[in-house]
């Protein structure tokens, strides 16, 4: 089974890009399954199901950090994909804060970033950009050729090795290249004992456990001060 983890900023077009790339696999007679992780609620799994008619699974993290929830469920998701006899399993992450990159060593990692997010975005996105195999740039049909090139160059500075692809989330133009790269990735035999490419942030303080009041006396655990 090929596995691909997809990360990216909110509204960058993760789901649209996934739909276009997976459609190429389906046209080739491959069976595809998709998992969507999110924090509060998402319709993405339904959208994928309607457009592609494939098995989908939704993981809502609720009060837990969505990326911690994601990593705690990777084995379960892997088994679910196997049980569907999937040739390709797509795992779409929540795409909220940019502190971590939910990518896994040895498993095809795709990060999606949109060309409208400003020329400094590649630096701000940190591990999402430097710990990934493929960077998909969306919405580049809306910006000048020069800004495309500068944006791409900025990504290159952060990650010199990743493949960089432009995909139009609306028309799917460019999604073929993405499909070809995923097709060329290794088959994954198991999820257990693999490692995240980048550690997740430490978070164990009173606010993690539901505290809402502001003030020193309510703060315990790992608390650091700005000044």
């Amino acid at each position, binding site marked *: 089974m090929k596995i691909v983890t997809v990360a990216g900023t909110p509204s960058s077009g993760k789901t649209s890009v996934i739909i276009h790339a997976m459609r190429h696999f389906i046209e080739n007679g491959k069976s595809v399954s998709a998992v969507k992780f999110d924090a509060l609620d998402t319709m993405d799994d339904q959208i994928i199901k309607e457009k592609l008619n494939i098995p989908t699974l939704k993981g809502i993290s609720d009060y837990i950090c969505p990326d911690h929830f994601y990593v705690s469920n990777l084995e379960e998701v892997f088994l679910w994909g196997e049980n569907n006899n999937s040739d390709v399993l797509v795992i779409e992450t929540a795409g909220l804060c940019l502190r971590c990159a939910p990518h896994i060593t040895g498993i095809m990692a795709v990060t999606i970033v949109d060309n409208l997010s400003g020329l400094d975005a590649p630096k701000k996105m940190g591990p999402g950009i430097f710990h990934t195999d493929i960077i998909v740039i969306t919405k580049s*049909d809306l910006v000048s050729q020069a800004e495309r*090139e500068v944006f791409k160059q900025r990504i290159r500075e952060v990650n010199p090795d990743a493949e960089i*692809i432009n995909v139009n989330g609306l028309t799917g133009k460019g999604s073929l290249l993405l499909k070809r790269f995923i097709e060329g990735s290794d088959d994954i035999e198991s999820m257990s004992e693999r490692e995240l490419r980048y550690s997740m942030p430490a978070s164990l303080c009173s606010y993690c456990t539901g505290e809402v009041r502001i003030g020193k006396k309510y703060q315990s655990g790992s608390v650091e001060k700005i000044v």
Partner: protein
Amino acid sequence: MTMSNNLKITVSGGFNKNGEAESLSELELHPETSLAVIGPTGSGKSEFLSDIEQSASKDTPSGRTVIIDSEGVDFACEGSGVIAQLSQKMSFIMDGTVERFLNLHAESRNKGGNGLILSTLEVANTLCGEPIRLNDPLHGLSGGQSRALMIADIALISDAPVVLIDEIENAGINKLKALSVLSSSSKLVIIATHDPLLILMADRRLIMKNGGMESVAERTESEKGILEKIKEMDRYTERVREDLRFGVYPLSSAEAVL
């Protein structure tokens, strides 16, 4: 850039919308030439541009194969920087001046020097009516100025040897000069258009029909005569337009003469 010198695009035919083999089975394109892609709406112009952009390999709806190579070295994807694009719906999103924009782009291409920035601006200003200044904010440029700056920037700063243009006819720029600026920078220009002037400006035209490449036609000597005539009409329209824009009233009788 050396890769543009021997660059070649080979398009091998696929199928039209009825699933029949395309009438034109192979098309070869070289730098310093221009190709107009023509045909009615729905004939497959955008699909053709898209196939080139994606280096189709029998895996797009057309079933075409596109090979972009230079002396056997394959440039498999758009990501390799072979292709620059220009379309009506592009805009600048950067917050800054024209100068900063051009500098940023030049730096990202490892080019520099005030000379390049100034000559790019100079070229841009030959394409649009109102002059662009270095310290103008990018977002304050008019539609025509923006398009003019994009074209000059692609011609002079971008390294991409192939330029794909999707309909720039209504951009408010001197399209005649625009096309010659791009082709004179030793680029291969492929333009999907309905504009007779742009079509006849191109060395060759690819005629699309029902999703398939129907034929490719070289511009004939007598068509060059027609081109001259259309150019004259274009200049005429331009002159009248400028007079009207600058409030000339009434238009002089000399203007009745084409």
